[in-house]
Structures are given as C-alpha cells and as structure tokens.
C-alpha cells in the first residue's frame, strides 16, 4: 500500500508512466475546445432552415400524408430542422436573452413568440427585417392582423397562428354549462380550477370579469384588482395549478373542473373528449397571436422567405389549420379548408364572425417598467 515500500528500480519507470498520464491533465484543458469542434450545430448553408416552434403546432407526417415540414422540403429542396423546444414565452426569452443581448446569434432562423414578446424583441433591436420582397404570399395576411401596434410597419413579423383565451371546462365535473369568468371562482369548484402561467391570458380574463379592459392598460393599478382576486383565490385553495399547455391533460382527466384555456386546444380535444367545452365568457375573452420572427443574425434568410411564402399559401395553410385548429392568419384558408373539412370551416372559434370578434380584447403594449411590475406580481402569486 505504502509507496515507500516499492523498490526503487521498479518504481521509477512506472511512475514515469503515471506521471505521463498525469500530464494528460494539461490536455483536459483543451477538451472543451475539442468538444466544441465536434458538437457544433448543423445550420448554415444557403438551403437550410431551422424553425423552433411551440409543440403540437404543426401537422405531422402520418403515413402517406405528408406534414407541412415534409411538403415544404419536397417542394423547395430546403433542408429544414424543425424543433418543438418553445414551451413558454418567458422561458424562451430567458434562454435567448444572454446570447442576443451580447450581440451573438441564436441557432434558429425563425421562432414564433407570442405577439407581446415579439414586440419586446423588436424594441430591444433583436430582430431582423423579414425579406418581404421575396414573400409574395405575404399579401394573404388577414387585414385585421396587419400592422399591429407593436410592429407598426409590419416589417418584422408574420403571424403563425392566432387564437383566443376563454374558459375551458369539463362538463362531467361541473355538471353545468359555464358562461362567465366568475364561474372560475365558484366555491363549488374549490381546488379544481386551473390558471395559465401565461400572465396576459389569466390576468386579462380576470380583468374582463371585473369589467376592466386589458387593451387599455397603462399602469399596474389598472390590473391591481385582478391580481388581488387571483392571489386570494390561490390562498383559498381555489386554484389547483398554474399550467402551460398541459392544462388540457388535467381538463380531460377531470382534475380541473374549469380553467383558462386556448380555443384551438379545446377544439383539438373535443374530437376525442366531447365532454370538454370552451366558451368565450360573456364578459369577453382575450385574443392573441403567435408570430414568426427572425432573430438578429440569422443567416438563412432566403430559406426563411421560402418557408414563409410556403405557409402563406392558402392551400398549405388550410392543411395546417385542419390539424392545429386555431385562427389562421391567412386569407382564403376558410375556402380551402371547406374542401378538406366543412365542419371545421364553419367553426366560429376558427373563423370568428363579427359578433365574436367584438367580444375579444387584445392586450395593450406595456412599457418595460410596467411589464416588470406585472411579471413580478404574477410570479409572487404563482410562487414558482
């Protein structure tokens, strides 16, 4: 065991070997560089494209029916990487902030943040202008979605899908139809109510329930009542969980009696779970859009143009809509969809008529300080 007992002669060379191995320690220092060389991303090149999107937000290839990504690759020859690692606006922003903030580029060429985050990215100067001259189909953008307040020239974004937040409920559990925001605070549903971690949808709906309009918010005081109401409901045990997209799971399985939910999700669910319902509350609902933007420093702008042009073709967009069942931003989709699925084409949650649209409110753009107040207050309540 003790080194001093080993003989000198035999010890020497062996130690040389061990010492030599130890010298490999110096090598260890250059390992990260080595790893960096072999672990690099696969973007780059004129005909490749990387789109990072929300999960379940595109039609997949199923058997012989090609999904949008495969149809696009077949039609254009662009090699496309499509990932679904976009799970949450705040989370994604936190992920890209250190890179874009330091003037570095991120891997994806296209991402689809919700409109308010796109507005923030634009204000921070972290977006590239879209190559609109190479996207002729951009004229198909629904007029109501053109030039939103947070992108007044419309040069930086094209909507991917739009939709609305309202009250989703499981009628097996509630035992009655719901129609008001106030139903979420019904003591009968104690511990069976879900709220979204997406602050604007949760607070927006509660504000509407209190008779406030989220489209005219300018300061925290405008929404303070909604925050108080939410905080009280949480402390009372009314709220079971704050969730992202996973509210659908709790809703279908009956853990939630009711929750704040998104229109397209519930439509998708109804196919297999008819007991799940969605309603735009009588006090009104919020509307939102997830928009395609190109982060600063993205290289494959030609491929980006091809992609956006492709998905703004009404025939392609209709196939996408048939799967995701949100509100399509592309004109002419309703006609195309009618050929595939007439029922969907007649659904007011996918193609809202004027009375429906009139009941929807879109959030005002918050200044940086006000938004910080909102976010801090919200994260104190969710406690996460």
């Amino acid at each position, binding site marked *: 065991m003790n080194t001093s007992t080993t003989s000198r002669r035999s010890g020497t060379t062996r130690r040389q070997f061990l*010492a030599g191995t*130890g*010298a*490999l320690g110096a090598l260890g220092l250059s390992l990260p560089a080595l790893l960096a060389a072999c672990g690099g991303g696969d973007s780059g090149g004129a005909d490749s494209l990387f789109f990072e999107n929300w999960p379940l937000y595109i039609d997949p290839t199923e058997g012989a029916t090609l999904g949008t990504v495969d149809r696009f690759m077949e039609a254009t020859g662009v090699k496309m990487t499509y990932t679904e690692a976009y799970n949450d606006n705040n989370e994604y922003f936190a992920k890209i*902030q250190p890179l874009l903030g330091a003037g570095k580029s991120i891997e994806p060429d296209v991402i689809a943040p919700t409109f308010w985050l796109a507005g923030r990215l634009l204000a921070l100067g972290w977006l590239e202008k879209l190559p609109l001259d190479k996207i002729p189909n951009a004229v198909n953008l629904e007029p109501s979605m053109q030039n939103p307040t947070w992108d007044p020239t419309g040069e930086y974004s094209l909507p991917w899908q739009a939709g609305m937040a309202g009250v989703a409920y499981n009628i097996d559990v509630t035992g009655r139809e719901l129609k008001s925001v106030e139903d979420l605070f019904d003591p009968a549903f104690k511990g069976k109510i879900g709220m979204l971690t997406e602050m604007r949808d949760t607070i927006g709906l509660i504000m509407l329930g209190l008779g406030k309009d989220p489209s005219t918010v300018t300061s925290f005081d405008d929404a303070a009542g909604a925050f108080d109401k939410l905080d009280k409901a949480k402390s009372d045990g009314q709220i079971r969980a704050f969730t992202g997209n996973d509210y659908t799971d709790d809703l279908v399985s009956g*853990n939630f009696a009711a929750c704040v939910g998104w229109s397209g999700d519930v439509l998708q669910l109804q196919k297999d779970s008819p007991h799940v319902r969605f309603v735009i509350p009588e006090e009104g609902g919020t509307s939102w859009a997830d928009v395609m933007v190109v982060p600063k420093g993205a290289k494959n702008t030609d491929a980006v143009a091809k992609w956006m042009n492709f998905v703004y073709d009404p025939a392609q967009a209709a196939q996408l809509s048939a799967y995701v069942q949100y509100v399509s931003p592309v004109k002419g989709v309703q006609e195309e969809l009618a050929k595939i699925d007439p029922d969907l084409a007649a659904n007011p949650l996918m193609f809202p008529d004027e009375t429906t649209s009139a009941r929807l409110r879109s959030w005002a753009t918050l200044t940086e300080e006000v938004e910080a107040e909102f976010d801090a207050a919200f994260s104190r309540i969710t406690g*996460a």
Partner: protein
Amino acid sequence: MNTTLLVPARQRVGRNADRVGLGALIVASTCLVALGAGWVGGAFRPVVVLVLVAVVVGLLVLVAIGGPQARRLLAPYGLLQPGILWLALFFLAPVWSLLRISLSTKPSRFSVDYTFSWAFENYTTAFRDFGKQFEHAFVYAAVATVLTVLIGYPLAYVIAFRGGKYKNILLGLVVIPFFTSYLIRTIAWSTILADRGPTVAILHNVGLVRLFEVLHIMNNGQLLNTPAAVIGGLTYNFLPFMLLPIYVSLEKIDTNLVNAANDLYSSSVRAFRKIVLPLSIPGVFAGTLLTFIPAAGDFVNAQFLGSPNTTMIGNSIQDQFLKQNNYPVASAMAAVLMVSIASLVLIYTRLFGTGDLA
C-alpha cells in the same frame, strides 16, 4: 561541473516534490477559478493563463529532470490534476460566480451585464418573497427523508438478512424502477394519484377518504396537488439513495454476530437494538444526506404533483432564473439553499458523523 551542482539541487527538489506537486495543483486550480469566475479582467487574464501554462509546463519539466524520487512523489498529483482542475473550473468557479451575481445588480431589466455592488437586497428579496418556499423545501425534504428510512430500512433489512441466495436478485429488483426516467416516473405518479385515477377510487371503496382528510393527506377529496403528493413523490424518487447505503452497511454485518446476539439477548428485538442497529447507523447517516440534499433542491415533484400552495425553493429558483431573468435574486436563493444545506450537513456530521460518505 554542471552536474555536480545539479545533483544536490535535484535531490532537494526531489525530496520536496510533493510540496511542489500540491502547490502546483492549488495554484493551477486557483488560476482556473480566477479565470472562470472573472476575478481578473482585461489585461490580467493573459497573465493568469500564462501562470497556468507555466505551472503545468514546470511540472512536466520537474518530472523530466527531477529524478525517480521526485517522479514518485509527483505521480499522485499528476493523476489528480485533470479531474481536480475540471472541478475547479466547472464547480468551484461557478459557485464563486453564483455568489458574485447574488450580490450584483442589473443596470436594466433585459441587460446581460451585472454590476457587483454588494447588493444584499437580493437576499432580503429572497427571504421576503420566498420564505414560504424555503420552508416547504426543508419541511417536505425532512418528512420525505424520515419516510424513506421507514420504508427503506425494513426492506434493506429483509433483503440483507432474509434474502438468502435471492439477495442479489432482490437488490436488483429494488434498483430496477430507477432505470426509468425520473420525469416519467413522476408523471406516472400524477396519473396514479389523479382525482379519477385508481388510488382515489380504491380509497373511496375502502372508505378511507374521511380518515385521509382528517390526517390532511387528502384535501377536498383530492390526493394529487397536495403536500402529501409532493412528499410522496420525493419519498419515492429518492428511496434508493436511502435504501442502498443502509443495505451496504447491513450486509457488512456478520450474521454469526446476529445469531450470537440472538442467543445472548434471547429477544431478537433487543439483539437488533444492541447489535444490528448501531452497526447500520453509518448507512442511515449516508442515506439521510443522499436523500435530504437532492430532495430539498428538487422542483420536479412539486411541479408535477403539487399546487401553487406547495411550491418549493427549487421551483422559485428555476422560475426566477429561467423565466424571470432575475439572476441576482435566483442566485441569492441558490446561495442560501447551498449554505443552509452545507451548515445542516456540517452540524449533522458533527452530531452523528461517521466521516465516511462514500
């Protein structure tokens, strides 16, 4: 002439080579921590890099010219060097930069720069806004640790002393569940405990719901999204960290000793208390640390099995760090968690320590 001068020098270096080796290891580690944690800025960085390179090269030179004794004394440091330097750069330096950021402020909300300013208000915020979460973390982890002992010890005991030739298979069986992904296991529990899931149905049929409500295991007729579910998840997920060390310490005990004790004390309960229990305490000790530490920092169980009223400090750190971009406060919370766990470990080791974790 040179050689005659060199020989005594070489012997002197040779005799003290271990000091040189240890010194080099410490200097090189310090250099890496300094580089990684940003102690030095601008023009000094190349200097530190140079020192680092010089140390490594110097060591190699020493090995080459130092003679057999030096080489022998240097060998362990050579072997340690790569691993320890890795830990210096990717464990020590990060902890340092965490502490630094916890005392820094951001110039603006979405800025990526931090100004170190002894900003202790981050710690005030951490305690003020997230005191509940600290409390949950430590209470839930402590209860879960006790439960793992209550479940793990008897199981380890039965396998070790009554397993016979099936001992290894039984032990394998215990470990097998943990070859499935941690997240999948936790998600599976959320389904098992769901309101319309099998567990609640069984409890209804057996009529235990009332009792569980009284015991605060169930709340409002639900099992999922309660403190009990979070604690149950923690218990389940960290059970092997308790069971295996206990098993190892039990297995070392000579069965003859137990038999003799059985004869001696006539009651097997007394024999257990006098012989087996004391000898297995090191296992329980190691298991307690291996269970409590990860449980206190966990956020997965609270996220999938808990409610907004059961969030643990891990959830808060994760949220502040990965969603709110509030690195200073997130770092402050992480630092508090680290320091409090380190102190608990220290106190615990002093009180019951066996000095042997591995």
